[in-house]
């Protein structure tokens, strides 16, 4: 399965049901409260039963993802970051060594090719920092490879369509 997660509406045509497109701005997702229930009470399941629980199983089951997010302070802006924080039920509490560093064990999370498309104000070192962030994410979110693309907001539909076309090749 392949997944497009966007923090804003996109005008894109999806063919085939192996691709899922989710506009996070239409969903109701509260922020993670750090209760660790998904690790220590109901493993694999978030205690907050809002729309995020429809999304993290899809993240886990995808071997390719496109994440579209506004950039803020060199990171994901609120909508995308809220979802990424709510995705920790896909990991175990337990820690392993990965590339010499400590990281959580993933549950059934497919290794994925990730394309991260960031848009918005890119001034003052935001791009460099964002690239470093995604390289950190790669370890914790099971990206086997990733690309970061910076785009104008007006180009997003076209950029996403180009990336989806690569999936179809």
């Amino acid at each position, binding site marked *: 399965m392949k997944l497009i997660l966007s923090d804003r509406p996109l005008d894109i045509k999806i063919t085939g049901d192996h691709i899922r497109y989710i506009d996070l701005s239409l969903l109701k997702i509260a922020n993670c409260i750090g209760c660790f229930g998904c690790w220590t009470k109901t493993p694999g*399941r978030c205690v907050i039963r809002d729309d995020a*629980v429809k999304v993290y199983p899809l993240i886990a089951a995808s071997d390719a993802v496109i994440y579209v997010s506004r950039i803020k302070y060199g990171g994901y802006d609120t909508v995308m970051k809220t979802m990424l924080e709510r995705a920790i039920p896909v990991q175990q*509490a337990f820690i392993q060594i990965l590339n010499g560093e400590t990281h959580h064990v993933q549950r*059934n999370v497919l290794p994925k090719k990730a394309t991260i498309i960031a848009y918005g104000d890119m001034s003052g070192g935001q791009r460099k920092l964002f690239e470093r*962030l995604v390289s950190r994410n790669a370890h914790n979110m099971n990206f086997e490879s990733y690309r970061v693309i910076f785009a104008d907001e007006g180009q997003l539909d076209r950029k996403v369509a180009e990336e989806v076309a690569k999936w179809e090749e």
Partner: protein
Amino acid sequence: MGRVIILNGSPRAPRSNSKRYAEIFSENPKTEYHNIARTNHLTLCDRLADFSDLLIVFPLYADGIPVTLLNFLKTLEQNPPPEKPVVSVLINCGFLEYRQNDVAVDMIKLFCKQNGYRFGSVLKIGSGEAILDSPFKFLVARKIRKLRASILSANYRELHVTMPLPTRTFVRASTSYWTEYGKKNGVTKEQMSTMDIEKEIEK
């Protein structure tokens, strides 16, 4: 009035490790402490005017700053105090390597640069989920006092601390820590180790 105001950006601020770190910092009485909540952003923005130094205490969340803090910074950007305090950071993360906090610290530095705040000191804590209840608590306490001294003397500096353990030993210790955590909830290590993620619920 004190010189330092502490804002806690943990999403579980009232029960957070960040709060416990802030308490060690505040053994010195000249601080004012607040949890960042969804509803108090503007009040906190107003309070900043009275302090020369702001210490933001928060956990690493998904390799960056938690949404709780991100949203506060966005409000602060729109509602800056007339006099801007120097911004220092006390960050903790669950993993052993304190350097995993670097990106989040640089996000705060970027906020400062974009909004005309001077960046002050930083203390990066690794193994921050468990270190306060470990024999290594004194190491953190010592670093927090150094952080405080650096802020109070305006000799700003970068500090870090983590458990002085080989990685493998840390992994074993963390496995015991989390196994105990589950046990208190009546959940076994095997249950916690499930590879299953709840199935997608119909839209």
